[in-house]
């Protein structure tokens, strides 16, 4: 049964002192799904993403990524799993300022296995940046920088792609470009988890999960309590 699930969370709680950012969460994400995790700020979505993305460990509960229990593995092993299986994309496009687009993508390869300029080039071509591979981040627009991040996230052929408000800092046009890339990736059969507060973005995904105060709530509950988030 587990072969069908990329991500399984069982009774996961993450506490910071007294505060429970994620409360007793149970969820499953199937292979190839395009899921959105939605909620207002403070709902715990970033924390949840960190847990799924192997950037953090749960206080209690169990997390299984691609059939592997990552709940209590050593930090080094967690890093390895994250490196091998997960591609991360953040709202703030984190690129090394003194490396070119190509080199930034190769960086991910460098820490994983072997830098391969050809593969990196292909990845950048996939996101439409073939003519920008030798540019430095400061020579790229916001949208282009984010696309480099996407290419980087893909380079090690991860089984899971996690994006935290990836279009938050982009204008409409670039937002469209990036979301198109995500749609294409979904078509190719990759598993994508998107964290967003934007209902329109959420509509572009396959399934939506709603968070409030660290717990999953029903869509109606979300609609009634967070109507202000619904754009007209």
């Amino acid at each position, binding site marked *: 049964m587990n072969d069908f699930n990329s991500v399984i969370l069982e009774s996961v709680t993450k506490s910071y002192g007294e505060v429970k950012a994620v409360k007793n969460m149970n969820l499953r994400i199937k292979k190839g799904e395009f899921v959105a995790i939605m909620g207002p700020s403070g709902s715990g979505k970033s924390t949840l993403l960190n847990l799924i993305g192997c950037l953090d460990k749960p206080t209690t509960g169990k997390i299984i990524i691609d059939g592997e229990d990552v709940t209590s593995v050593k930090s080094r092993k967690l890093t390895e799993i994250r490196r091998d299986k997960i591609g991360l994309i953040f709202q*703030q496009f984190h690129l*090394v300022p003194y490396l070119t687009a190509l080199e930034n993508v190769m960086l*991910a390869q*460098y*820490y*994983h296995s072997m*830098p391969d300029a050809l593969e990196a080039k292909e990845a950048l071509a996939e996101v439409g940046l073939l003519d920008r591979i030798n540019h430095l981040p400061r020579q790229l627009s916001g949208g282009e920088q984010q696309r480099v991040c996407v290419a980087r996230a893909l380079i090690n052929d991860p089984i899971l792609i996690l994006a935290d408000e990836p279009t938050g800092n982009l204008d409409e046009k670039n937002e469209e470009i990036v979301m198109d890339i995500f749609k294409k990736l979904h078509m190719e059969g990759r598993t994508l988890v998107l964290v967003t507060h934007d209902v329109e973005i959420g509509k572009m995904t396959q399934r939506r999960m709603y968070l409030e105060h660290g717990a999953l709530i029903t869509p109606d509950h979300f609609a009634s309590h967070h109507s202000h988030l619904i754009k007209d």
Partner: protein
Amino acid sequence: MAHNKKISMFFHMLKGAFFRRRTRLVIVLLSITIASSMVSGMSTLYADINSKMEKELRTYGANMIITKTGKKQISLGQTEAIKKYFKKDKLVGFSPYLFGNVDLGEDRFIAVGIDLNNFKKVNPYIKLALKGGSYRLNDKELLIGKNVSINTGLAPGDIAKIKENREVLKLKVSGVIESGGVEDDQVFIKTAELQKLSGLNSSADVIYVSYIGKQNTLQSIAKKINASHPSLEAKIITKISKSEGSILQKITSLVWLVVLVIFISTILCVAATLMSMIFERKKEIGLKKSLGASNTDILFEYISEGSALGFIGGILGWLLGNVLAQFMSESIFNSAITIRLFTLPLTMFISLVIAGVSSIFPARLAFNIEPAVVLKDE
């Protein structure tokens, strides 16, 4: 084959870190270069200060005196033999004096037979009195002390009649010299001419020596001379030699301490600069960690960067430091420095240590950086 790709990527990153962060790089390189130049310059200066100061202190004149123990005067052969006990490059002056009593007009004066060049070297403070003339002693010439000039009324250019017993010499006064001491009451002529006047053919009554060396060195030379020439007595002029030792020691320790203070203060400032610059790269570290870099990877990268900087800055600083030391040596001592090889490894070592420690320290703090925390920084 596989390894090469990784290595070349590593160097790519290193190059990027260097050449694409220009202002950063300039600041860091400058800091390390300054620190290294202080190390190199100050250590060269300190190494030289002792010998250069020793030479300057010879301005006080003779620090050793060789006299006769009995009535027998010092012969030319003895003079030459004694001279051999002194190292040529440290012998500043070696001046035999021959004494005689002469009549100049109605007064009696002490005449000193000298070689003027040697005389000048052991009495560098003796100058021409304001009466002028020239400070030279050619054949048939006479130098007179200031008081002699006042008493006899002789001035440069005048012909003086010198008499000892029955011999008379007519000499032209070439100049009037002044010392504030006994020389002001004496007259000076060429040794050969005094020998003619007194009818003696001995070389000297006394030899004054100005030699660069500490009291122990002088004492051992004196011992050797006394052992091989019992009719002579070689002695250190304690007043000069003892003071010199004490002054030299004080100046050297003063310079050493000042140099040390400059040194340390610069190094601390530089290390602080480097460390604060690395703190800025927290995000970069977080990012790399999120991409799978381990603490060891991060540490290694920063140490490499630090080492490369330390190496280049060290060499530049070493060169700059030598230029600085040369400038100071020329302006203070009018002499060139000796480029000392030990300063190169010393400078490189310190420069690498500064760069290394300044890289490691923040890098170790980076161990605790959680990628999640840094990457969520808003």
